[in-house]
């Protein structure tokens, strides 16, 4: 009975009155710009002049011949693997440790999660400052313990720059998996462990046969969100190394930016953005679908 009342009142278009403000903004400032980028990527527009020409897929054909794109793709891949694997592993270990009999949990949690709320630009500033060749804390610490030979211009040389930028990324990205795993660990019923102990299972066996399988949903969310996040990398690299030295820390996001705003190749830059977006969407679709399915 009540259900029919709910149906009658409000009318068929009532839901749309609620939906339209958000959908309007979303379409105007996200969907429409993203789609028009598809168009720009097929032109030779420089980003400034009033006229430009349709050039088909030639921007895309140029991509594999651009040595910086090759470097950027490689860097994106290294970035993705390292900034997912390392923070997830550290986050899991911290969560397991914090789930035991430990004092001061709220403070420890606060400490490990704090980097995640700082602006990426400030994280870049902090680490740029720590990496300073003369007065940075990192080289000073190395000198203090007698490892003078290891002190170097971390951000200033090709061989170390990318790895040096990944350290702050790891620092800021460990907190989230830690929190998520901690919440998941607390949802595992005790009885499972008690029963396993009665059956004579070792701690190690309990970890592999109870803890890890129970964490599967958490693994999935951490992995999906980290993957989506990794492809978006821009701020940290832009603010720390500006893609340099040379092109050694360029990723697709920064290379797109430089093409559009420095080299006046908006068409080509947009093609780079389209490629990385398609990869990000492809990677993210299973997650998006799971969230949509969940809801119905």
């Amino acid at each position: 009975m009540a259900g029919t009342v709910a149906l009658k009142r409000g009318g068929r278009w009532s839901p749309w009155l609620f939906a339209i403000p958000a959908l309007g903004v979303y379409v105007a400032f996200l969907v429409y710009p993203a789609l028009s980028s598809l168009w720009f990527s097929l032109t030779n527009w420089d980003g400034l002049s009033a006229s430009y020409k349709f050039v088909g897929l030639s921007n895309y054909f140029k991509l594999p011949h651009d040595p910086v794109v090759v470097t950027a793709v490689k860097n994106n891949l290294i970035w993705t693997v390292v900034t997912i694997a390392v923070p997830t592993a550290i986050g899991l270990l911290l969560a397991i440790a914090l789930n035991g009999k430990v004092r001061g949990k709220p403070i420890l949690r606060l400490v490990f999660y704090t980097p995640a709320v700082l602006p990426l630009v400030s994280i870049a500033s902090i680490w740029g400052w720590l990496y300073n060749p003369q007065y940075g804390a990192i080289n000073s610490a190395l000198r203090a313990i007698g490892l003078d030979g290891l002190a170097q211009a971390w951000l200033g040389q090709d061989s170390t720059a990318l790895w040096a930028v990944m350290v702050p990324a790891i620092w800021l990205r460990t907190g989230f998996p830690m929190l998520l795993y901690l919440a998941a660990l607390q949802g595992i019923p005790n009885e499972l462990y008690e029963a396993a102990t009665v059956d004579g299972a070792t701690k190690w066996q309990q970890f592999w046969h109870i803890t890890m399988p129970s964490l599967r949903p958490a693994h999935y969310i951490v992995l999906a969100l980290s993957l989506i996040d990794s492809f978006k990398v821009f701020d940290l690299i832009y603010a720390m190394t500006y893609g340099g030295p040379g092109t050694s820390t360029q990723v697709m996001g920064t290379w797109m930016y430089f093409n559009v705003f420095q080299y006046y190749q908006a068409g080509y830059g947009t093609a780079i953005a389209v490629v990385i977006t398609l990869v990000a969407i492809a990677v993210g679709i299973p997650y998006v679908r799971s969230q949509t399915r969940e809801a119905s």
Partner: protein
Amino acid sequence: MTLTVQAPVDLPLETTRSDSPGPKGRRGLVMTLVLAVIALFWISPLALLVITAVRPLSDFIGNGPLSWPADFTWKNFSDAWGIGNFATTYRNSAILAIIKVPLGVLVSAMLGFALAKLRMKFRRTVMFTVFLGLTIPIYITIVPVFIMMRSAGMTDSIFGLIGPYLAFGIPFEVLVLQSFFRQIPDEIIEAAKVDGAGDWRVFFTMILPLSVPALVTVAILDAVATWNEFLFALILLNSDAHKTIPVGLLNFQGQFANNNTGLAAGILIAVVPILIAYTLLQRWIVGGLTAGSLKG
């Protein structure tokens, strides 16, 4: 992949799981010590920043970055405040957050309500399209957004940032809010409708008041994201009078490259509001994050 937002309560301090039959507390103590050492290491970049910001430059250069200050001063802060133009960037970031966050939460809640509680046609399609926004990198939209804003005369104005910020906040906010609304029993809504309440009254007098925990969580995470956003602000704002904190900090970093203590003070000035807000509100943030998703 359940995505539910509970009222963000602190994770229980003590686990219910009792392991370690051995000497009680010994292992816990060792683990606490190990974690405390790691935590100290983890927080050391921020600790060094604070220590450096309160010492004179001569003391820093004379004794090295790792020494305990021989002398304390507040001068670094006043220098950094003035040269870094922080009065302006603070005001701009604050105005932006004050307009953007409530607006974003309201329109997202409206859409979330339509998706969760109203009989909306194409519901799954709308959900999928909106959630797909979580995977889309900001930089695919920057060229068209830049053109839109330029033709609307809204470049170099913080108001030009509101549309794009809203659009990129909506997917996450709708995702969290609709899943929270779904847990509100249909019966109470139907009862209200029998009493003659329309959809809008149900939304404003029942759904919103019942969802305060979720609304607060979403608002805080959105405020952090708004405060920290960098790429749109970088491309759309050019005069110093209109810059936000992250863009201002980037400029400041360049100017203070050789003044280590001033740079430390400036970075601290930029991050202190976020750190205070996070410390005070962390249980809401933790609740929101463990609820399943994170805005990239």
